[in-house]
């Protein structure tokens, strides 16, 4: 298995990808188990209307009469062909139901990421440089408070502040009509994206600050200063590359978290994305949709983590040369 252990960066990436695939397999098993294998989905769907006939019919429709294992592989096979099944609520292919909504949510998440990450890194670094001075105290306490608040509370407070009771700037809901693109309605995007940014920024800026402080107090930064290097060189060449390593992991975790946070935000703003789709699917016991969304979000998480690991390795020569 020597090839498995060697191979430099390429080998490392391959190993992590394989590991990610393994995790996804396990996740798929869990998703399947929890939605279809435990309990009787047909009964859950029909609820009080569960007469024996109807149960039998529905079970046939859902292929529940074959063995659990067969069902699992059937579903898995479909997944790999990007056939996500048929939605029970709308009788349409899941891919159609989710297609547009996926784009909508993706727009929110990407915008939030692109805005929050640079801002957080900047805030965190500056706070570390001016440690315990005004900017640091104010920003750290602000981040603390923002981190504690649930996203929907932040969303609603923003609505109250900017839509209703104080200013009347942005629309309180963002119901982008079906078939249109979200970027055609920029002012409907402002509040949801701001909420997402506020959900993520405190964590990234906190870790950046902590990492930067540790680096600024390190022996090698002290040494760089004692060599008489200009302060800018010290910060840019010595401090920053070492400080940014731990931050990648946190960014990945938080972006993956957005995938979940987006659920609640979309509910507040009535935004037609996968979050709202998930809530609807849950309320309607629309199992294929729930399964598809669960796998999707898990896949996003795994991919983001992989990217974060690779990025960390690239910035840390010590780990690179060990491969």
């Amino acid at each position, binding site marked *: 298995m020597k090839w498995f252990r060697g191979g430099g960066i390429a080998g490392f990436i391959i190993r992590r990808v394989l590991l990610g695939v393994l995790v996804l397999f396990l996740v798929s098993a*869990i998703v399947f188990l929890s*939605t279809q294998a435990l309990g009787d989905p047909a009964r859950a769907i029909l609820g009080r209307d569960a007469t024996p006939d109807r149960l039998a019919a529905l079970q046939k429709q859902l292929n529940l009469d074959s063995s659990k294992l067969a069902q699992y592989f059937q579903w898995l096979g479909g997944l790999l062909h990007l056939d996500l099944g048929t939605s029970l609520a709308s009788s349409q292919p899941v891919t159609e139901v989710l297609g547009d909504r996926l784009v909508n949510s993706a727009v929110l998440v990407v915008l939030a990421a692109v805005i929050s990450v640079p801002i957080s890194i900047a805030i965190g670094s500056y706070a570390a440089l001016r440690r315990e001075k005004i900017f640091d105290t104010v920003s750290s306490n602000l981040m603390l408070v923002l981190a504690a608040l*649930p996203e*929907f509370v932040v969303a609603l407070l923003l609505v109250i502040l900017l839509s209703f009771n104080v200013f009347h700037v942005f629309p309180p809901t963002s119901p982008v009509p079906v078939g249109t693109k979200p970027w055609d309605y920029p002012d409907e995007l402002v509040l949801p994206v701001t909420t997402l940014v506020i959900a993520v920024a405190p964590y990234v800026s906190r870790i950046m600050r902590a990492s930067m402080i540790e680096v600024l107090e390190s022996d090698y930064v002290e040494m760089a200063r004692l060599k008489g290097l200009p302060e800018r060189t010290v910060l840019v060449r010595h401090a920053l590359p070492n400080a940014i390593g731990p931050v990648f992991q946190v960014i990945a975790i938080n972006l993956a978290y957005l995938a979940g946070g987006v*659920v609640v935000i979309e509910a507040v703003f009535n935004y037609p994305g996968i979050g709202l789709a998930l809530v609807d699917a849950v309320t309607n016991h629309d199992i294929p949709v729930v399964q598809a969304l669960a796998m999707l979000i898990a896949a996003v998480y795994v991919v983001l983590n992989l990217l974060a690991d690779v990025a960390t390795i690239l910035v840390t020569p010590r780990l690179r040369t060990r491969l």
Partner: protein
Amino acid sequence: MTIETAPAKAEGVDTPTPAVRSTTLLARSLRLWRTRIGAVLGLILVLIAIVGPLVAPHASDEFITKPFSSGAASGTMFGTDYLGYDVLSRFLYGGRSILVIAVISTAIGVTLGVVIGLVAAYARNSLDDVLMRLMDVIMAFPQIMLALVAVSLVGAKNWVIIVAIALTTAPRVARVARGAAQPVVERDFIGATEAMGMSRIRILSGELLPNILGPMMVETTLRLTYSISVISALAFLGLAANPDAPNWGTMIQKNQGALSYQPWGALLPIMAIALLTMSTGLIGDGIARTAAGIDRERGDE
């Protein structure tokens, strides 16, 4: 020829009475303003949540007048809600379920997580790898997603929510517990107990656990904050156990539409949840800073 005048003193023989051990981490952290503010706020809100029902002016299902009337029009302090019930009374009733579920699920999740984290950190071998992969798999789902999936399967029952949150809390706590325990496991006093042949359980509970109490306390407050957040969000999404029972989350959802003219129905619970989560956050941060300060003191050897 000796010029010595004073007798030799062995180290430590003539030392005065032992110094007073400074009080526990919690007590010390209460000296910080932020912890105090957090504690007071938290106490107030917990009181509201728990004692609220006893002091509510009306019953939680007592019809007052038409829905969304203002305070003046309905003779109440904060007006009526979407069903015509008294906002203040429903608000006073509405915190209990959230708080109780949050505390129980956090307690279970933290306990589970600490055990797994400690075992993984001490094992240092394939058991550690396996456990952490398992935790990774569970962590692939955002907390709220897993709760949604669970609810979609079984229904929005209280025990389902508790299990879902406990199950998603545990791996996150395990990760932190493991991270805190790993450096301790490397230290020689653990080696000393191993050389004595102390049982593993005794080492984990008697030697390791007391040394990660600080980070665990902080993590617990953090997890409590999240649990409250997720539970109220679930209620907000319409997934509380009993949709008509008074609940801060459902109150926000149902009264949201009237925000522009009768905001209290949503505003009161919004503020309550905001202040509650802020208080747990402040307490956690206060403990974290105190622990860091103590580490710095000790580090000046």
